[in-house]
């Protein structure tokens, strides 16, 4: 599953509407609660445990991908 697909699944939006710049500002459902749900979903999907500082960094799709790379997710 791609990051876009996962973000789409968590926020119930079509992954095709998402891009690297989709962020907490462009997605209405991505509020603080939504952010926690997203982190949990990412951890489960990619089998990683993301540190809190990294989790706070992940404010748009590009950043999510960058952080995941550091955890060895391809």
């Amino acid at each position, binding site marked *: 599953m791609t990051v876009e697909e996962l973000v789409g*699944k*968590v*926020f*119930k939006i079509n992954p095709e509407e998402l891009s690297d710049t989709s962020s907490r500002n462009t997605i209405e459902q991505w509020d*603080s*609660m*939504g952010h*926690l*749900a997203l*982190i*949990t*979903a990412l951890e489960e999907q990619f089998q990683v*445990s*993301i540190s*809190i500082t990294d*989790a706070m960094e992940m404010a748009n799709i590009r950043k999510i991908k960058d952080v995941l790379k550091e955890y060895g997710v391809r």
Partner: protein
Amino acid sequence: MTQPRVPDDSAEMGEWSELIAEIEQDYPGNSREPIRYLSFLLESLTAQSPERTLQLLQKHQQTDLRPLRSLPALVNTLVRQLLAKGTPYQVEELLVLATAWQIPLPVEIHIALAKAWIQLSELNRARTVLQQVLSKTPAASEALHVLYELAMMEKRTTEAHAVLNQLIEADPSLSTVAFAYKERSKLPSNSGQPVRLALLSSYVLDQLIPYWDFECRKVGLAPEFYVAPFNQYTQEILNQNSALYNFNPHLVFLAISIEDLFPEFTGYPSSEDLNKAKEDITGNILHLVKELLQRSSALVVVSDFVSMHHSPHGILDNRLPQSLLRWTAELNKTLADTLAAQERAFLLPLTEVLNWVGKTKAKNPKMDYMASMRLSEAALPELARYCMRYVKPLKGLTKKCLVLDLDGTLWGGIVGELGPEGIHLGPTAPGKEYMDFQRALLNLTRRGILLAICSKNNPEDVLPVLREHKYMILREEHFGAMRINWRNKAENIKEIAEELNIGLDSLLFIDDNPNERELVRQVLPEVLTVELPRDPSRYRMTLENLSDFELLAITKEDEMRIAQYGAIGKRHAMRNTAASLDDYFYSLALRVIIEPAKPEVLNRLVQMFNKTNQFNLTTRRYQTTDVERFLKSSISRVYTLEVSDRFVDHGVVGTAIVHVERNQWRIDSLLMSCRVMGLTVEQAFLARICEDALDAGVTTLLGEFIPSKKNHPVKDFYCQNGFTLQSDDGGHQIWEYELASSKVKTPPWITLTENKLGHDR
């Protein structure tokens, strides 16, 4: 079909003509197969004009296209092309062909088709497509999403609520549950019974609400929630004019975590700290609860305290006066006692709930540190379900009667075919799982729940089982109503409700047959039909996970019923505090039946010969034909050993084969299940064989022993009983015993009884 043009001029093949010619040398005639050429033509045509391909396929649908191996791929390409370029009408025509050719198409095709219909405002057609998908794959989340949008467009509130429920069943993640909860706030409320639930907590527990909402919706309630601001439970409770009291809740859930009341708990508290904290905390909670009870008519549910860290004392914890684990347990006990004195206040055993989830899974440290969320996504649904155990009786949703099927539900197999002897019900598996299920059902009757039977059977086949089968836990007298006949189960269930004078909505139906369940679900939607798992070893768990049998108090009638069963409970509760080993054996109240094997235990004997490893003197793996031969033989005796103790009836757990030879008897096999090892019953078994041999006028008893990798626990069995070694060739020992001086006796704590199997004759 138009005969496809077979190329006669290889120039048409362009640059590959040479290669093709080469291949034709190895596989002459292959390229002349029209079928391959046809496949090629169809592919090209599909890329050019999908509409034309569809037309041709429809025109020639009577032609057998099965040899065309590329047909499924072709249909898949074509359907995608039509979705992009054609109309949904054409897609649907192609789907008709695909169904006729038995070509499966992925779910997303159907969903895309439904969306195309919606664009044309053909909502009914869209609905039909989605319902077809869901009838095959009920968990297709995508289809449910589209169906939900459809319901919203048409303002079908009830359906929209129902689809949201289905959506959560298909994917119970927090994001789906939260989505559904948010959507419901836009929908007009469904017509269910309203219930107002308030949540006060010392940590962030807001995510419980969507799960709790879902559980309420499932049982037809229309819940409203009030969540107090973070960690302001004290102010909310003590302020008469707080939003909490304005909300006028039916139920208040107060969830306080121990580290919020007593921060030292996560450090290294001393005995003095602990003693003081216990007093403070109990006093504090009691004060809050009393205020709540006084100022509102709500039911107050307080969660107990859970230790989510390891003790700082390690394995020494329970040896120290400042033990944290013991302190937590004592605190919860004190709290339970304190709340038990209040009629409307209950202690919710959160510790127990989280144990079921598994503490490692129930906490998510990151969410705790980031957002003060103490409970993980895994714990929330379980907690929400547990909360329903309080909501349901409060709203009168407790079920009063369980209607039970028999074959496959209370026992394994069909009694009408197998007879009472043949059904699976007894102390060994298969059979044990049904006994345990019956035990859980019996427990419910002690709580005041009625049982009824609804079974397609002949009464004369069933009644002997109910009345006489040795291992039935439930007897005729436990059932308030019985419908054992061949009529429609829905009709029977209606009659049961009338006979017991209770509403259909007080009934719960349990049947292993999915068709019967479906029938009752459709005809009697008021009855709660339980989805029983296929595996009977999950029956008891499924039953006990239901939150439909809870009582907020025990009435006088319940108490009387409970008193009748009290004696049984006491016997089981008796704790063994034996001073010596002999006392221990006496306290077990061992009862043993030793008798010549009956033909009906044949299967059990074969099973034991092939399964028993430890207490098995010769490990001879006899099969059915062997055992049958011994049973019929006049020179062999086959014994069975049945054991029961104060707690359990173990059933047939041992067997021996003895060969009769002139002046001596020879023990060919002697084995016993490891479940009854160490109970001295083998002494009784050997004593009986000695007695029978003496009665038959025999002087010598021989015992064989063949060592195996696993039977060393019994290598000294004959030696210990006074046998002398006669021969030993390393792999086979013969032991000898002079019966005249026999000292082998049944231990005095064992009672020998006759078999009085009710179903025997």
